């Protein structure tokens, strides 16, 4: 019973949190879907880690209004992102663009993974080699650390 009450409480809180920009802005379902997707891709520059869809900040409200206007006048998604980055820079995009200066950022996880795999391979191969030639040395290995 208490669990159920807690669950209901949690669920009602999450509804409140999601209600920053509830309600239908467009009669057209496709436009509404586009609007909801685009505002989730744009960063609220006041709160930084929130999208303008999630933020209560006045600036986020202004930017949502701007997105709505741009959709109404028939601009494409690319146009809207361009409109925003011209004014606020790439930082406004929650997903940074792939460009020469962000290659390292995008490749970073893969590079770290490759580095880790390389280290594992080196260690494993060395231990295999030692095990073949001098198994006794392998027993001592932990002590050396």
């Amino acid at each position: 019973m208490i669990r159920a009450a807690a669950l209901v409480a949690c669920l009602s809180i999450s509804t409140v949190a999601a209600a920053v920009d509830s309600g239908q802005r467009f009669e057209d379902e496709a436009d509404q879907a586009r609007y909801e997707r685009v505002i989730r891709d744009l960063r609220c520059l006041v709160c930084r880690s929130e999208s303008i869809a999630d933020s209560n900040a006045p600036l986020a409200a202004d930017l949502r209004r701007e997105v709505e206007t741009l959709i109404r006048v028939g601009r494409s998604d690319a146009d809207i992102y361009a409109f925003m980055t011209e004014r606020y820079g790439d930082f406004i995009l929650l997903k940074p663009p792939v460009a020469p200066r962000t290659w390292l950022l995008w490749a970073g996880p893969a590079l770290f993974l490759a580095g880790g795999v390389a280290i594992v391979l080196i260690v494993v191969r060395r231990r295999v080699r030692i095990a073949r030639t001098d198994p006794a040395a392998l027993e001592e290995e932990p002590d050396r650390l």
Partner: protein
Amino acid sequence: MKLPLRFLVPALAFAVLVAFFVVGLKRDPGQIPSPLIGKPAPDFSLESLGDPAWKVGPGDFADKHWLLNVWATWCVGCRQEHEALLAIARENRVPIVGLNWRDDRALALRWLTQLGNPYVSVAYDPEGHAAIDWGVYGAPETFLIDATGRVVKKQIGPMTLDIWRREFVPLLPAGEAKP
């Protein structure tokens, strides 16, 4: 021969991390670089704060350097920088134009009466349309626009006389009297 490498690799990795942190710590995450620098100042034509019949826009200040200061009465940093703005206005080197952002006209006018008015004119932008065109995300922000109509400098956060002298004055055309 094995031992040095075993120490060298982590030490190098650590050095790289430290280098990243040193650079990272020196950068202020509050300062988002403006893509507007070097670009023509975005145009606007807004009601003057004091007189709705009068329009204020960047065109009024063509052919000279001027400052655009984004402010509001709800903005604490704006109150902090107000004395500095008054002092800069007294130096009389560049006109300061106000962009009153998401504010109430009566409150804003009272602010200027009570604290003094550093602005040659103030554009009233209650809905924040012009502010979005200028990439404003938090007041106070101050832009320097040069005689060719390009934005050459942006200060995010309260203006101080120190910042003014160190970062703005050198960008002003030479030949004008030093204070």
